[in-house]
């Protein structure tokens, strides 16, 4: 039974990787289309990730700890993009931020045109990936022992210091895991990106979009880029797992996996 599940998960990956000889695969990695797509993907996902963590962490902290009227509504809104099919998300972004969308007039007045720009790619990634991070971050912060934060308060730490010096390190395992999932989701984002930002090599064509456009022209190259995507995603997930494990085994974490001050004797 377990073997069946593992086989189901591994078979498509193995098929993809073994489709062509390694030499051709490596050649596919080095083509202009591939390198352009890598640069676009890493740049847009990097910026989106920085925004997501930079703005999302304090937001999640407040949401986790504060109690206010309408909190559950906000929590539901945060999770909404999760259940939106990416194409619908792309459509929603278009009618909100598109040239003739809800904010189109305001954007025009400010001289901003988002159509077919990298900014649009970043927005699309942010929209679909943030719920993954926010959800995990809220859960991680909610699990932080209240007394730790209160003690910090009594020692004179302000709210920002309490969050950065106490809550974040303690919640780091959960935050890291949530960030990893969100980044992987953002890297694979396709539907919202292609609808909202279009696809143009070197500007908006991310790795998933490159796979799609090559499907018509050159199947071998499409597969090579697909394998590249898998390798990059796997590397990120592995790094996140290792980071989470090293955090969890430090003495100040809630569930020490390694050395524990109570384990001796």
């Amino acid at each position: 039974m377990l073997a069946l599940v593992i086989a189901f998960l591994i078979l498509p990956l193995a098929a993809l990787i073994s489709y062509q000889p390694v030499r051709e695969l490596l050649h596919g990695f080095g083509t202009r289309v591939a390198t352009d797509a890598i640069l676009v993907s890493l740049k847009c996902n990097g910026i989106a990730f920085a925004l997501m963590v930079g703005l999302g962490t304090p937001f999640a902290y407040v949401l986790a700890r504060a109690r206010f009227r309408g909190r559950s509504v906000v929590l539901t809104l945060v999770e909404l993009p999760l259940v939106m099919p990416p194409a619908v998300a792309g459509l929603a972004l278009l009618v909100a931020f598109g040239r003739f969308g809800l904010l189109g007039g305001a954007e025009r007045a400010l001289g901003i045109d988002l159509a077919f720009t990298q900014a649009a790619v970043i927005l699309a990634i942010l929209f679909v990936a943030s719920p993954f991070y926010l959800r995990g971050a809220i859960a991680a912060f909610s699990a932080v022992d209240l007394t730790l934060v209160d003690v910090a308060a009594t020692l004179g730490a302000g709210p920002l210091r309490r969050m950065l010096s106490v809550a974040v390190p303690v919640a780091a395992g959960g935050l890291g895991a949530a960030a990893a999932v969100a980044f992987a989701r953002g890297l694979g984002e396709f539907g919202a990106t292609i609808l909202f930002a279009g696809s143009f090599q070197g500007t908006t064509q991310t790795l998933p979009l490159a796979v799609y456009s090559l499907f018509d022209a050159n199947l071998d190259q499409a597969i090579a880029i697909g394998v590249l995507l898998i390798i990059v995603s796997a590397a990120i997930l592995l790094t996140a797992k290792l980071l989470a494990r090293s955090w969890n085994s430090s003495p100040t974490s809630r569930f020490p996996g390694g050395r524990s001050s109570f384990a001796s004797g």
Partner: protein
Amino acid sequence: MLAAASLTKVFPQIDPHADYTFGGSGALETQVEQGAPADVFAAASPKQPAQLFAKGLVTRPVEFATNTLVLIVPRDNPAHIHSVNDLTRPGVKLVVCSAAVPCGDYARKAFKNLGITNAAMKNVVSQTADVTQTVADVALGQADAGLVYITDAKAAAGKVSVIRLPPRAKPNTRDFIAALTASQHRAAARAFVALVLSPSGQAQLRAAGFGKP
């Protein structure tokens, strides 16, 4: 039935009971090559069916309609484009299909025939995977202009305005249809092709804006 995106509205009118998958002719060709269980392949160009015929994957392709490449702009034409030469103006946001899709191939050929390739391609901001996406980009006002078939422009009538290309752009295109040799329903496939070529099928195509084969 695997059919080019330009046939999205008219094929179901010809035969409402068939199962259709519409998309870029190149992507559909790849699916046939990979053994997709389809019965008929209809493309917006002679190239893809000919390539499949050379590999023995389809029967001899038959031309069933012609189409015309036109320039479309959003209805209120924010970039004030009135002719194909306006496409060379810097800053115009032009959307075309990618080169592997017939519509994109025709667009590039038209640019070449008009001698505006460099200037026009500089304005391309997105390359779509099928012609219906190009239409959508222009209809939604995201792009200033796009090159699509006149049948697509007709289908999006309220939202886009059409600018015909000059004859020297050679904007005429040809649609081909063929049955898959690996089809499990050879008789039904043949019947569908016959229906498309029949007077009633041709009348539907004419009504949608397609030309005679």
